[in-house]
């Protein structure tokens, strides 16, 4: 038998206080300066719309906006977020569904949905930067977001809709 009670206090002792803006609200949180943003969002703040999958910046499931630009939160450390504006999927649509989200809903742009927040966050960044983005621009912008379910068929339908002005 190999079990026992070996409990300790696990509150973090850190002198670093991270201040940033998250989905429009200012947040101050004591964390280790090298803690990954994805852990701060998912674990410390319990915002689980941001997903975790490869943890090496290849799949895009953890994509967030940092000052409006797409960034893998698995490759972003706490200190890099200081004073930044960070937006997660939860901040994309506050009271009504965003047109990008609506396109995913109506075109079958997702199945299991696990890659979807990252996809939508990426597209939001691209369209904000260039509202007249072409199909090629959007494809380029999604090259860091993997989807295993749809084969990108539904995502192509979304992109056609978003570029068909």
């Amino acid at each position, binding site marked *: *038998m*190999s*079990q*026992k*009670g*070996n*409990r*300790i206090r*696990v509150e973090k002792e850190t002198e670093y206080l991270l201040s940033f803006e998250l989905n429009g609200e200012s947040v101050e949180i004591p964390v280790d300066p090298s803690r990954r943003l994805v852990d701060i969002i*998912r674990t410390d703040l*319990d915002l*689980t*719309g*941001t*997903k*975790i*999958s*490869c*943890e*090496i910046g*290849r*799949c895009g*499931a953890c994509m967030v906006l940092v000052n409006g630009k797409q960034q893998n939160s698995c490759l972003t450390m706490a200190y890099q977020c200081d004073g930044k504006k960070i937006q*997660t*999927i*939860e901040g*994309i*649509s506050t009271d009504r*569904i965003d047109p990008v*989200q609506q396109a*995913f*809903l*109506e*075109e*079958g742009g*997702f*199945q*299991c*949905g*696990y*890659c*979807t*927040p990252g996809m939508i966050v990426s597209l939001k960044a691209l369209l904000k930067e260039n509202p007249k983005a072409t*199909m090629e621009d959007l*494809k380029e912008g*999604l*090259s860091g*977001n*993997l*989807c*295993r*379910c*749809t*084969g*990108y*068929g*539904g*995502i*192509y*339908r979304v992109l056609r809709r978003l570029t068909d002005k």
Partner: protein
Amino acid sequence: MWLDRSSSGEKWKVRPDGEEKVTGKLRYLTDMTFPDMLYGRVLRSTVPHARILSIDTSVALEYPGVIAVLTHRDIPGLNGFGISIPDQPVFCDALVRFEGDAIAAVAAMTEEIAEKALSLIKVDYEPLQTLDTPELALQPTAPKLHKDGNILHQTDYQRGDINEGFKQCTYVIEETYITPRQMHTYLETEGGIFVPSQEGRLTVYAPTQHGYKDRMQLARILACEEEQIRVISSPIGGSFGGKDELNVQPYGALLALYCHQPVKMHYSRWESVKAGLKRHPMEITMKTGVNADGEIIAHQVQILSDTGAYSTLGGPVLNFATEHAVGPYQIPHVDVKGKAVYTNNGISGEFRGFGGNQVIFALEGQLDRLAEKLKIDPWELRKKNLRKLNDLGPMGQRVVPTNGPEQVWEAVKHSPLWEKKKTQSNFSKPWIKRGIGAALAMHGSGLGYGIPDHAGGLIRLNKEGKIEVAFGHEEFGQGLLGTLEILLQDHFCCDKDDLSIVIGDTDLVPPSGSSTASRTTNVVWQALNRLKGPFLEALFTKVNELTGCPVETLKTGPGGIWADVNEEEELVITYSELGKNGVAELECSTDFHFPVTPDPFTGGHYLYTSTSVIAEVEVNLLTGTVKVIRMDHAVAAGPVINPMGYVGQIEGGSVMALGFTLSEDAMMNDGKYVTQNLDTYLVPTIFDVPEEQYVHAIEELPDGDSFGPRGVGEVGSVALAPAIVSAIKEATGIWVTKLPVNRELLQKTPFLTLWGEGVEEGTK
């Protein structure tokens, strides 16, 4: 019918689970937390084959914040799991058989402490010879990996006289085909949370494709009654067969029960690669002969399947491959032999297509090569040999009459690629070559003869006044919830808000069998057909008691029960009033067996879906890169219930097959994974996938067919590889026999050619 949004009309619907998914609000089971939860981690072997000399957990256990460290000594019940044969130890005791074998598990107060504790467990190994290929494992001197040796399963199917058959052949093609160790690569890695109650029950929140099966397997390990365990298993962030077998569950369950606290587990991608299932790598040798008229006379097949260290469903996968090695063709002399062999490699198991993908690649390759010998169109050669409506199945078993193969053979001509194939393309860049290829396949649904394949469901009017259905099925993205909503609205003409759909929770649903084998749509369709009559009868009898309206005037509609009164429809009673008036008798259930052939060929199927694929590729001779320009599928699977789901299954399956053909291989070297994450294991990105991909759905079934919609979950993934390979041949003159396609094989090497060494390897 080209299936798309405009051809689908109102049936192209936003999924019931859609809004939660696009807003990030959906809590996947790996997103859940509980107060006071601990973090669980598994210590895995670092060596592929070794004797365990000692395991010392004492230092890890002393580490502050570590609550439990468990090993094989701590399992109250069976130290084993496996859907078919429970030969995989939960924790190894004396022998390690693969790199991902579990030695111990830790529960700690933080993830960091759990990680640290793993490094403090000391295991002494005595390394043994690594059997890293089936050939090595089959050598008489090879150490035995399991007590009965290294052969998990063998198949042997024969009809006619194979030697006599080959004597009648004008041309014979013999070729060996090799397929990769493909990884499911669900974006959500394995994980879940395990919550013990004060009453001693355990709630398991972890994805699976068959909640009741997990419950049975866990009860066996924990030595408890199955009813002590509740398995909540949906929603799921992708599975494709990969989460059908137990993964985190034994560890989370044991740790939670030992610690009397919730335990959360979530594999990293590397642990998922190391411990998870893959598609069986197969080496398939086919010898196929035709007479001068192009009739296939003899077909001999040998399948060697690397099942890895443990069995899971390696046996049934081989059965499936054996059956599908004959395909939709009528051949008098057949001899198929298969071997699934244990090795020290990662575990191979259930994966979309279930052994069909590998043999269909080989079989369709044979047809193309034979057509070349005969100097006839490969599509005409297929037609000549294709099964007819009432022909027997691939193993000589009776099947539900199907002309699906003929339908998809014809339907491929609707693709613009069919006409394009006949035209000559001119390119300004001489190093770019284009080709178009096509292939077809027939794919079984259901588990097949000899395997219990129970189905069932339940319908009721619940207390909240909703028409509620409950099924023991799972939603892993395929669109089951949408399919059920469409079926229920069809049956009851009600609003979607009048419905409640319950799945994925063993405390709330009846056993419906697994959500695998392209069976679920068919199961729920059959179940609702069985349930509708008795349910409406019970409902209308109750309404008649309450309102006096004659039963024959009643019907269900939006919001409640309606009646024809003086030629006008009026709402007689709402569902919610009805719900308040007692609902005990307003519940009906059904259970039945999935349709199965009466003929005793183990694993033989009765219901089939057929598909054809036509694909255009561009090969860059300087880089060897193959780019798929367009691919179109025809699918004959009976009526389309959920068009968005149907199209999505074919597109998604097809692109998974694109990866299987061109880029995906979980490579192993000496029993260790070399490709450990998505930087080297390459699933297709949006750039690798053609913008043009269409699905032609053939809904017509033979007269009198009562079996309804066939599954489409797998069939999109089975026939693309041979179509691409055929297109590559047209483009380059090179036959590819090994997947994923080796770019170097397709590269013209101009400098070598200058020196006179330009050998086109693989050219036959």
